[in-house]
């Protein structure tokens, strides 16, 4: 479904990602794990064209994404939940969802119902200004906003970042639920232990390079991951 081939990218001439090659097949949940500053966020930003790759190719459902502007990506079926959630703080929760459905207005009411079934809390908070939601609710709202476009592929950037441990649990529970609903998900996480419980496969990114890949089980058992990241 998504093929990233030898992609490099950076900011203002400073490279952050080298030669990344990975793929996501329809129906899969794939993780990209690695420490802070490994290039995980950059990878997602390249896929949704918020930054242009300096080299390499991207294709989605067999069609190249070269020359596709960032604002046309969601129309292709890729929805991106950005780092730090980035809700519109002074819009209400439901107005944020409305923005998520900007390109899919005809199905707004129907999607809203689906999303509220998945996140009943957001229905209670629908009229609340997003900036005053709790961290967990904000993360739900950000994920729900991305789902409003009816994406084929969901990109999740660190959904657990900055949340209390109990809330982290419930967010991963939700991610698991979304995967079970049949969405294809590419999730970037520092919380390696948790994310490996949710995804089918994962890539390990370190210092801008993909250094390892495999099934979640394999990676959990890999000695270098156990030692460096899981503290075993």
């Amino acid at each position, binding site marked *: 479904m998504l093929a990233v081939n030898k992609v490099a990218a950076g900011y203002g001439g400073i490279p952050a990602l080298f030669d990344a090659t990975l793929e996501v097949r329809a129906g899969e949940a794939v993780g990209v794990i690695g420490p802070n500053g490994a290039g995980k966020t950059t990878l997602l930003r390249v896929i*949704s*064209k*918020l930054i242009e790759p300096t080299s390499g190719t991207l294709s989605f459902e067999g069609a190249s994404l070269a020359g596709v*502007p*960032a*604002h*046309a*990506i*969601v*129309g292709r079926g890729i*929805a*991106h939940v*950005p780092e730090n959630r*980035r809700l*519109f*703080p*002074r*819009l209400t929760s439901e*107005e944020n969802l*409305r*923005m*998520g459905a*900007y*390109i899919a*207005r005809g199905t707004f009411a129907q999607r809203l119902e689906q999303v509220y079934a998945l996140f009943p809390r957001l229905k209670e908070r629908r009229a609340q200004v997003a900036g005053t939601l709790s961290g967990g609710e904000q993360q739900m709202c950000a994920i729900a*906003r*991305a789902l409003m*476009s009816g994406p084929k592929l969901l990109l999740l950037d660190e959904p657990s970042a900055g949340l209390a441990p109990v809330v982290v649990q419930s967010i991963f529970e939700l991610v698991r639920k979304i995967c079970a609903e049949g969405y294809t998900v590419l999730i970037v996480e520092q919380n390696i232990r948790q994310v490996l419980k949710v995804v089918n496969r994962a890539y390990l990114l370190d210092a801008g390079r993909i250094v390892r890949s495999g099934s979640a089980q394999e990676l959990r058992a890999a000695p270098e991951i156990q030692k460096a990241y899981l503290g075993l």
Partner: protein
Amino acid sequence: MSEIFDIYLLEAVLNGLLLGGLLALLSLGLNLVFGVIDVVWICYAELIMCGMYAVYYLYVQYHWPLVLAMLAAIALVALLGWILHQFVIRPVLNAEPINQLLVTGGVLFFLQAAATLVFGIEFKNLGVTLPSVRLGEMSFSAARLVAFGAALGGVVGLWLFLSRTYLGTAIRAISQDRAIMPLMGVDPGRIFALTSALGGGLAGLASCLLVLQYDIHPSIGLSFGPITFLICVLGGLGNMLGGFIAAFIFAQFIAVGGFFFAVEWGYVIAFIFFIAMMFWRPRGILGK
């Protein structure tokens, strides 16, 4: 004696209210553009001047019906707003604020000079005199009543547009987080251009109302440009509700101050109030 005094004071207060509506409309477009694009159109009042000339020429020279001439003027100024954004603002969108002020300041002098060349310096007016409306002992200019009604209509219409439509919500959203708008499938450049056209359209509406009350000349922008800008600052730049409230406060100072002393004194008091407020609340009444 005191009874007459009271009724004239009431008349002044009500006239201030009517003036407030007009000032509120004037501040609306400038505030919208600043709130969304973060650029101050110093030449905003000169766009209004262009609209006033458009109404004048279409109505007086080409004998269009007045309402049609006004609609055309609104469309023209909306187009000017769009052009201003695409050709002047867009290239300096990421430049220092001072550069942005300087370019729009340049447009101000360009429009003034161009209007002097093309239209000449003599005062022009529509030759339309709307009657005054009497209410008991008090009298109000019908032009002001019309302006007040249209201004209120413009404010309510804009509010409905911003709160009820996808496009309006996107305009509010983009002012809160420009960088992630593409993730919503929104092209920020397009929203900016549309906002500019909308800001221009509001300037156009203001020009239709002003042309009913004032003579047109190339530097008319200077007589209400500064006050428009001050109202926006007093309300909190970019805060439309703040601008709305500030417009009515300012208008009361002018009207009631003018009643007790002289019209000029009304302005002096309003500006003293403004300066005092800048010490007390430098970010405006509703500024954050």
